[in-house]
């Protein structure tokens, strides 16, 4: 069984300023990122594993799924259970009582992913299947 969780926001193009201060000698580097409605799927086994991981902290903690540069194929998945950072810059989804956050800058890369969990000694743990990826590496942690 898959649970589909969606939040409604208006798609828009937003500028992200990757610079905090310039000391008056440089211009900030700006990159445009497309922001879309995030749509995530979790398998039954992923939900069970997620509940075990966050056990008892559902109100104060959230799962953040993000993408970072790197890995064999260009981007790396990252999943963290952290104290709720608030809504600024994030899209928040309720998945079986657990708050799942995806940052707007990662929304176009991660929307549509299915989070699965494999209980095996080698290569086990959370796995992500991403329909947006043109390629992924052997370990499954990187996509491009």
């Amino acid at each position: 069984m898959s649970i589909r969780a969606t939040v409604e926001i208006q798609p828009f193009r937003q500028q992200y300023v990757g610079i905090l201060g310039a000391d008056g000698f440089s211009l900030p580097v700006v990159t445009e990122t497309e922001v879309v409605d995030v749509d995530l799927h979790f398998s039954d086994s992923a939900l069970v594993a997620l509940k075990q991981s966050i056990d008892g902290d559902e109100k104060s903690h959230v799962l953040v799924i993000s993408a970072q540069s790197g890995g064999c194929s260009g981007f790396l998945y990252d999943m963290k259970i952290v104290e709720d950072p608030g809504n600024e810059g994030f899209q928040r989804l309720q998945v079986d009582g657990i708050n799942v956050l995806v940052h707007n800058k990662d929304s176009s890369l991660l929307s549509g992913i299915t989070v699965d969990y494999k209980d095996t000694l080698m290569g086990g743990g959370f796995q992500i299947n991403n329909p947006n990826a043109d390629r992924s590496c052997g370990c499954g942690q990187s996509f491009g």
Partner: protein
Amino acid sequence: MWVWAVIWLRWYLVDYLNLRCEHIVRSSSISVMKGVDSQIVLDRMVSTKLSNLDNMGTQIALFCDANGRVEDIARLMKIDEQILIISSPEFSSKIRGMIVSGAGWDEDCSLLNGDDAIAHITLVCKDEIDPLSHFGLVNFDLLPDKVVENEDVLFSKEKIGGANVFEILLPIVKIDKIMSKLNSMGSEKIGEERWEFLRIGLGQSDIQDARGNLPNESGLGELVSLDKGCYPGQEIHARVDSRGRLTKQIVRIVSNSPIELGAHYVEDVGKINLTSSQYDGSVNLSLGISPIFESSKIHSKLSNGAPIKIEKINDS
């Protein structure tokens, strides 16, 4: 015996290039990364291991695509928590985009565009000349993996082919002052054509020689780390190292007449793809990607009969 041969070759090369001290203002792209996570973010993106890049350190890093092919070569300089990235101008917007969009939501990393703020000068000097003394750094032994800062001007030094190559970074507002100092110490300002001739003569491959090739083919194999973990192109580099057999290498070609860039058929060697070529009026120097051959030097000729000498410039 071979030590004397190497020393002779270096003297020969520098003598042949008629080099004393020459400098060029480069059109490099300069970016500045700030924040405690900058090095971690950058390390994920390059094929070179950056964990040894210390404060006031410098190293060259390769950006490769997912197929392991070189996209850009960047010199990095670390000053406190800032990393200066000196890269090719045509690739800088991609690098900057990758850094800004690739930093995690909880990572402390931001980026400045330094193109209109920082100038880049390359100074090439014969081995026995010490240009740093003219900049207030008397008897200063600058190691190849270090930078030194004096009056807001940064210097790094690398020994290439018997000459010392200095990279000088400075605020643009100071460029007239530094150019005047270089002039007064006897260094000659040169243009792109002379710089290309010098660079090829010294055997320094640049991005036009490397882009689209595997690092080892371009003599840049030392910039690939096979034990740092994943980065774009890592699977290909690991496969080449463990199972592949290198079929190409970078070579320098010396001839008496100009040779155009592109593919040339060379007797006894095969197809050589010339990536850099410069004629100074009497000698043409080129760099190109050639099939592997065993000897360090080959005398051959092009399909039009022009005699050439092919030299390996870097054991990859």
